[in-house]
């Protein structure tokens, strides 16, 4: 078994939560991903079995959504929004500065064209699930120093 006992139990609970079990598939994949940081073929298959759908049905979700990953990733992911509202407020400078200052292999700095709904606090980035907003001046310096100390 690839999935932990607690994840398997949580998925089984989800299946019973919804009017139709297959609704649990996406949340099940997110739980499975939380176990190892990414979705291996084995984890996808086990999640599919627990929900009661073909493995291919789970795989096609895993490969579609941007928050699901089928390959291992560095432990710390920083995703910087570079869509128009953030670009107009210096997102490119932020990306350049982060990439120059943070060189640890355990930190991934990713540029995205997705919008995260923080345009009024641009430029911004997501560190894991956490929003880091208004990344200018001292706030930016603190963020960079935090990432450099990883």
């Amino acid at each position, binding site marked *: 078994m690839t999935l932990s006992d607690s994840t398997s139990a949580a998925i089984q609970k989800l299946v019973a939560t919804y009017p139709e079990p297959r609704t649990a598939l*996406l949340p099940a994949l997110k739980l499975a991903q939380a176990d190892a940081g990414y979705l291996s073929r084995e984890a996808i298959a086990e999640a599919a079995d627990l929900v009661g759908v073909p493995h291919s049905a789970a795989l096609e979700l895993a490969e579609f959504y941007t928050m699901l990953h089928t390959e291992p990733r560095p432990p710390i992911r920083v995703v910087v929004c570079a869509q128009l509202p953030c670009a107009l407020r210096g997102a490119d400078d932020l990306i350049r500065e982060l990439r120059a200052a943070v060189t640890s292999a355990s930190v991934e700095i990713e540029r995205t064209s997705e*919008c995260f709904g923080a345009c009024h606090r641009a430029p911004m980035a997501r560190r894991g699930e956490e929003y880091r907003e208004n990344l200018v001046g001292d706030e930016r310096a603190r963020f960079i120093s935090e990432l450099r100390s990883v």
Partner: protein
Amino acid sequence: MSVALDYQRVLLPHPGRTEPLSLDEHKAEDGYAAWQKALTRMTPDQVIEEVKASGLRGRGGAGFPTGTKWSFIPKTGGAKYVAVNADESEPGTFKDRELMEVEPHRVLEGVALCSYAIGAETAFIYIRGEYVCAADRLEAAIAEAEAAGLLGQACLGTSVNVRILVFRGAGAYICGEETALLESLEGRRPMPRSRPPFPAVEGLYRRPTVINNVETLANVPSIIDRGSGWYSSIGVPPRNTGPKIFCLSGRVNRPGNYELPLGAVTIRELIDDYGGGVIDGKAVKGVLTAGVSAPILSPDKLDTKLDYDSVQAAGSMLGSASLIVLDEDTCIVRAAALMEEFFRHESCGKCTPCREGTSWLHKVLSRIEQGHGAPADLELLLSLSGEISGKVLCALGDFATSPVVATVKQFRDEYEKHIAEQRCPFEPW
């Protein structure tokens, strides 16, 4: 300062607040009074009629009359569902996030009222996966309301059951398209369905379903509590009633959410009086009013009133009322390339014109911006856009052509300069 100095905010009455209102705080502001009123003194049909009479139009972008949408649900028995569209992903849009983070009970009360009106016992709030804070706060508020007997089984001691479930997405703009949202909820790849049948007849699990935006439903408690007459006196009746949250971003001094009556201010007033003007006092080059999904408006349209009909008459759409301000230093070609990059990334791939077309549009825009464009590229952009628009299953394809067609038509000289000089004439930003 224009107009709305004496306007009493309805949806976000605590500007600047970032912490959620507790159940007690919400109740102290007449929270759940509408829910109590509906359950004890109104039939479901009366709730629908009140919402119809208010003139409330959907705040997600399309502006469809909300009460009319609810009335499409068949009165027959069997399961019905409410699906709340909280997949707020349009660039420049952050109003639903603030509503859910700060006013979770107002949202839940609206969801409960909609459920009661159409006879649904289960409602899903489909929230984008990145909005972790908002989702956590909604779940905490649901637990509070269930513990107080307001939601769940036998709401307020009646025979009405309303179970609200928060469903977290995983990163896909297309899930904001209502039938793709339903596919996602059903555990399938979120690709739009062909219609008919429409969701009111065959929606979630092939059962009748209402899909409403968060802000739309956040309006409903006040309509039921204070009456449609009061509500429709806000804004510009009969077609543009009620409050609206305007998301202001881009090159302005004070970006943020501003709640105002529909049609109360012009684009210029929103930018200058509320947004503190353009950074460094620069001139406006253009304003997007519906995120990146509708044509850009040029500076001669700045005196357009911010309501559905006025913005449409000016040549664009109010949509989600997400205003992105571009100043005179903004390279319009780069702006268009960024917008198209978004659509290329977010196209679900189901319809060939959108899947292939957005990729080609982005490629051509990028080469022009980088100084490698050819004179024929402008006609190529327009012709490619024509091959997408109206030839796909959902609105994303049409949205994707807006940044291109509108900027090529309105700023053709800027495109031509890039091509003639084989470089971008603007400073990088």
